[in-house]
């Protein structure tokens, strides 16, 4: 082992140690636990093979509610934040008076903890005293009991996530926009391209590599959402808004069945890794074409 190799390993040794102890080992422990019968009140830990997995996969709650919830939520939040973020980035790409002010406001959600954002928006949608219902009443409409029905609760959760993540998209897309060369746009002006055609045929294709990366990263993170759902609805009403990370937590810490919780978590992990790879490959085809 030569000096260079030793140096390389020395550089990553502390990181590797921490990673192994606090990520690899837990994941392996969790995977192991998922194959055992391990409840917190009855820690026998006998090997049961795939029983836990089958239980989760057969659980109607998981199949019919949690998985569709998670995918639906992921698609909805990524789509909304992408479109809004792009619109804001396009706007901020122009110089107009007060631009710095708008930029500061756009940065606001980035410093707010998801938990706090969930609290703020949950308070706004409080059915008795929330400002949204007060506004509805003011307009002569009936107040809505937001957090007692599945879809309205979802709307609130979606709104929170979009509020939190649109600025992230906006900033990254703005940086992307600003790094585009100006000459093709000048050529497009001479080529009589309207604002819309310029956007569709020139701006968008050139932005695609950045957008692809953003979409993949955000999709993976959206899949794992826990904080805001937990704070806004706890997965309710009656477990109707559970995402898979909440499901796993509930199994492990409320039903005290760590094994099933781990099995659910592992299933989710596999799903997301596979999905991420597929998504990356599909979107990458677009990037190849537009390079």
């Amino acid at each position, binding site marked *: 082992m030569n000096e260079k190799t030793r140096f390389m390993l020395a550089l990553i040794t502390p990181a590797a140690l921490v*990673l192994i102890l606090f990520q690899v080992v837990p994941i392996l422990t969790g995977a192991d636990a998922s194959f055992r019968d391990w409840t917190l009140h009855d820690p026998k830990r006998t090997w049961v093979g795939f029983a836990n997995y089958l239980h989760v996969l057969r659980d109607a709650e998981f199949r019919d509610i949690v998985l569709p919830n998670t995918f639906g939520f992921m698609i909805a939040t990524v789509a909304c934040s992408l479109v809004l973020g792009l619109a804001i980035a396009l706007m901020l790409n122009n110089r107009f008076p007060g631009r710095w002010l708008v930029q500061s406001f756009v940065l606001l959600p980035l410093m707010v903890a998801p938990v706090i954002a969930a*609290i703020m928006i949950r*308070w706004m949608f409080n059915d008795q005293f929330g400002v949204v219902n007060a506004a509805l009443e003011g307009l002569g409409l009936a107040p809505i009991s937001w957090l007692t029905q599945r879809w309205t609760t979802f709307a609130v959760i979606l709104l929170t996530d979009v509020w939190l993540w649109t600025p992230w998209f906006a900033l990254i897309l703005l940086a992307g926009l600003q790094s585009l060369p100006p000459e093709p746009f000048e050529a497009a002006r001479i080529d009589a391209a309207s604002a819309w*055609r310029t956007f569709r045929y020139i701006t968008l294709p050139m932005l695609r590599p950045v957008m692809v990366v953003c979409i993949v990263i955000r999709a993976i993170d959206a899949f794992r959402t826990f904080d805001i759902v937990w704070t806004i609805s706890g997965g309710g009403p009656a477990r109707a808004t559970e995402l898979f990370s909440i499901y796993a937590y509930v199994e492990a810490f409320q039903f005290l069945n760590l094994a099933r919780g781990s099995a659910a978590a592992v299933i989710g992990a596999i799903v997301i890794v596979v999905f991420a790879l597929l998504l990356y490959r599909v979107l990458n085809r677009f990037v190849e074409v537009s390079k």
Partner: protein
Amino acid sequence: MTDIAAAPARSVGFFFALAPRGKAVFFALAATAVCLLFAFPVFWLILTSLRTGTGVYYVHRGTEFTTDNFHEVLSQEIVLRALFNSFMISTLATVLSLGVTATSGYMLSRFKGPIPNAWFSLIYIFRCVPYVAWVLPLYFVTQKLHIFDSYWGLLLPHIAVHICFFSWIMKGFFDGIDPSMEYAAMIDGCSRWGAFWRVAMPAAVPGLTALAILCWLYTWNEFLFALILTAHETPILTVVMAQFVHELGMEWHLMSATAVIALVPALIVTLFGQRYVIRGLRI
């Protein structure tokens, strides 16, 4: 052949067709809408925290303002402890993570071959694994190591996450720094470690500052690890707030006050550090 040049450009386009005046109005409206959308929840939160207990039910109609909520919240021991703990954890995690991810990113940047590839793949895979999959068993790992519900029990897992998140960004920074300076240092008698510490790290300071700010904010706002890995010994602010939501029920004035208190350090760090983040990430 028809005279193509004579074909009029019929699609005039929305923007170009607008008179400069129209454009300005459009921008003003859009800008206002954006500002309102992002600022309103925060504004509402602050307003709620300034209302009395009964006033909170008519936040938009009440006229009284009070700072009593803050007094009451800050007099609770758990809040004070949580405030202190969160601050310590964020700061310590940032300092430790920076050191560990800097070396990791440097290795990924300067070297090629099987070892860096393996490290890169490892980090990438574990970045994708959802937290829940390993936080649950972390509960047991930390208990076994007797660090559950303590500083180290939170710090080390956080550092593990930071390694996955921030090594790439560190790699990017070091990619942008010319390695010739380090070669020159080594020719001048520096060891590889010396070249790293005395040449590469100082050059990466803008990037490190940016990352420190992002890391601090991320840890300050983090929830899931704090929820699972702490109990009564080490209260953490985000968990305390979530608990208030479920326990305090109607006492939104106290809730809001706690939330505002949690927001203030994040605001200060962001406002102060915005410049450095932008400068650092330009690399």
